[in-house]
């Protein structure tokens, strides 16, 4: 049977669709597999850079190799004693290493939650006093470019350096335009109300959970 004759058969569209689908899908699977390691490595570098930025290391202009080296050298993985937070021994690294019970200079707490469009994932750094934020960085977000996505830019993130958390139900406020300038918190992004509202909730939940975990399970005292 020739191709022309087969094209007249009722089963031809089904066979054709199946063959075309198989062909293109096979190529895509091959491409995805060959790029999987690279994509995973990119994701890991993004996370490591966010941890470094949150604890106060200037990692913005580092290339991926430098980010990874700085992360391995400076950041300790989460332990039960840190309630899931990464730790940065800081400049007391040399003497801290000799003492297993040494208090780190900064705790880096990963957080995630639903933003306006999709999940927002980031890291917030907090000092052992439990109320001084050292910095914040994001490693995954799909907020609107130019509006909600401005949360990753230095003008927004720099507000979190040396920020003191409030005492009360809301540890952290993202203040909309027109709020009292003396009210504790950081300025929200104009035009990104939903992103800021959701981020405020995500951060408050993450910080409260970590603090209560440290107090409840480790009899931790504010320093």
């Amino acid at each position: 049977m020739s191709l022309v004759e087969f094209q007249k058969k009722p089963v031809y569209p089904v066979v054709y669709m199946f063959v075309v689908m198989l062909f293109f899908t096979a190529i895509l699977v091959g491409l995805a597999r060959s790029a999987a390691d690279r994509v995973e490595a990119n994701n890991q570098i993004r996370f490591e850079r966010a941890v470094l930025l949150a604890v106060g290391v200037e990692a913005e202009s580092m290339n991926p190799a430098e980010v990874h080296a700085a992360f391995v050298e400076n950041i300790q993985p989460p332990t039960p004693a840190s309630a899931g937070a990464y730790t940065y021994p800081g400049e007391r690294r040399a003497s801290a290493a000799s003492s297993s019970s040494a208090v780190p200079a900064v705790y880096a707490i990963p957080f995630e939650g639903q933003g306006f469009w999709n999940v927002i994932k980031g890291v917030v750094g907090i000092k052992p006093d439990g109320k001084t934020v050292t910095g914040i960085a994001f490693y995954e977000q799909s907020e609107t470019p130019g509006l909600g996505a401005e949360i990753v830019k230095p003008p927004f993130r720099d507000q979190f350096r040396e920020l003191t958390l409030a005492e009360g139900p809301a540890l952290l406020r993202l203040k909309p335009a027109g709020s009292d300038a003396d009210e504790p918190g950081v300025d929200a992004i104009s035009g990104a109300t939903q992103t800021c509202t959701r981020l405020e909730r995500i951060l408050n939940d993450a910080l409260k959970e970590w603090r209560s975990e440290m107090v409840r399970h480790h009899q931790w005292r504010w320093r």
Partner: protein
Amino acid sequence: MDGLWSDNPVFRQVLGICSTLAVTNMVSNTLVMCAALVVTLSMSSLSISILRKFTPRNIRMMVETLIIAFYVIVVDIALKAYWPEMSRNLGPYVGLIITNCIVMGRAEACANSQPPGTALVDGFFNGFGYSYVLLLIAIPRELLGLGTIMGRAMPYFSGPHWDKWTIMVMPPGAFFMLAAVVWIFRSIQKEESV
């Protein structure tokens, strides 16, 4: 080459408006989106044209959608692997190229019935026609709304004397700019035909 002016996909055919409105609040995102669309439109038109004599008429749209999705996913994987920063900036908009009416519109209007060379050129120039219109919309939006172009601060617009028009980087600003561009270009075309 009609896609550049007389049959421009944005202001004549009024296609691809969703992404026109969505990505044009920043010039850098617009450039990458345009490059992705030119590649996808050209390659999918070429592929659809090559297969046109084998594709049954009654399932041609399913095949076209499959081919368009294939090239969009290739672009998405390439961005995620080799330009992760831009992949994050564009986010869901790259995947939305699959639903961009220009690609399917040109597949139906040209690629289905023309030889591969013609289809490739048609896709390429329609992609460029889309691109320069998007850039004409994106540059004023970013300049007036953020005071920058390609993230670089511009004199005066990034200074303290310019009160940024945040609305320009929000959806209403996109509609205003698109309407202005369509009005201006159609007025020019009307004068040309007189």
